[in-house]
């Protein structure tokens, strides 16, 4: 049977991708950003994930304003990196586990999550930057070490889905994966954030205290954390900080009882506080021993 064993929370700042693609990660500005992912890459390798279920948002790249799905599940065979205005990132095409994606789509809709099914889709930095930070440098002729099922969430046009909805969607994804008949190790990524505001006169807002309590409560107090109203994200973590609702999908897909394996926090990467956490289900840890 397929099983979800661990979750990763991770910022997806585009400038991180640019830094990797232009080979400047050892510069003093970037070195502390990437240092925090060294352990994560080792962990990712040891985890031997067959599939990453990756929750992210598109940044008005692939989805224009003609159609704004709240939840769009990638069911295509593969997803090419998109041109975001300065050429596509030079990273591998993302390959799907298409049979599992179809199974999840079917299961979610019967579970009353009326998602949109994407049979063709490109992916922007929201998806490729977390892949790069967790798997390291890969060129366009390389392959990612595992398959990826993308779930694209609207967080651009207000309102994003509530944290509660996202958390419960995570639970439904868990039920879907648990009922799939192939033996697969699935890791869920929730991406975006942490505090940042990119727009207008208050741009540059960072709230380390707020981000820290978010990371703390993700392990110990996830249900009440998922009840955080949108206004708190907007006011406290910046207008683009609302991306963090996507971390609740990841948390909902895990067991109630998880252990924090790793955490990294650094300000700034461009306009943004970089946050990262790795959580493992405790019962899966026992199974490994």
């Amino acid at each position, binding site marked *: 049977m397929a099983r979800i064993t661990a979750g990763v929370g991770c910022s997806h700042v585009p400038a991180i991708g640019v830094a990797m693609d232009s080979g400047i990660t050892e510069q003093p500005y970037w070195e502390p950003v990437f240092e925090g992912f060294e352990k994560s890459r080792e962990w990712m390798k040891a985890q031997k994930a067959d599939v990453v279920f990756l929750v992210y948002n598109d940044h008005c*790249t692939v989805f224009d304003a003609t159609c*704004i799905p709240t939840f769009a599940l990638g069911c295509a065979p593969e997803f090419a990196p998109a041109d975001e205005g300065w050429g596509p990132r030079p990273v591998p095409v993302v390959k799907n586990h298409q049979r599992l994606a179809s199974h999840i789509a079917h299961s979610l809709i019967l579970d009353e999550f009326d998602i949109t099914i994407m049979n063709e889709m490109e992916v922007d930095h929201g998806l490729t930057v977390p892949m790069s930070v967790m798997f390291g440098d890969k060129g366009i002729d390389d392959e990612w070490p595992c398959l990826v099922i993308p779930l694209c969430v609207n967080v651009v046009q*207000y309102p994003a889905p509530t944290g509660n909805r996202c958390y419960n969607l995570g639970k439904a994804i868990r039920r879907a994966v648990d009922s799939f008949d192939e033996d697969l190790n699935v890791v869920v990524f929730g991406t975006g954030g942490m505090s940042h505001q*990119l727009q207008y*006169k208050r741009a540059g807002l960072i709230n380390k205290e707020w981000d820290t309590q978010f990371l703390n409560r993700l392990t110990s107090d996830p249900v009440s954390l998922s009840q955080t109203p949108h206004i708190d994200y907007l006011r406290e973590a910046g207008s683009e900080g609302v991306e963090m609702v996507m971390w609740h999908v990841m948390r909902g897909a895990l067991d109630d009882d998880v252990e924090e394996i790793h955490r990294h926090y650094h300000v700034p990467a461009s306009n943004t506080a970089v946050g990262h956490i790795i959580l493992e289900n405790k019962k899966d840890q026992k199974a490994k021993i």
Partner: protein
Amino acid sequence: MGLNKDYEDIPGTFVFDADRGREGYYLNQFCISLRKAPNREAFGADEGAYLDKYKMTAEQRQAVIDRDWNQLLELGGNIYYTSKLAANDGINFQELAGLMTGMGIEAYRAMMLAGGRSPEGNRYQHEWDEKGEK
């Protein structure tokens, strides 16, 4: 009962909701077209002719021509769309933020390196009103 737009009292912030999405629709569709290289070339060759293809208001059109980044947001633009126009001009996200805040690119970058803008005094419109910030 109307919707409670409790986010309207956050200073220096436009939350891009469905009303703003409606207002800015053609402006934003113009901006996103620039993510494709042939469109960037066509826009660069003749901005006026390219803009004629989009049914935006005269004010929105002028804000595009003027590269008035704040005005673009005030007229229904969204930052992820307007950043495509900025990228076309060789301006990245951090430089764009430096311009929108009125701080300038260098001072903004220095603020970010020092930990960013604190939420203290930046949560409610009345806090900016009392400081005389617009």
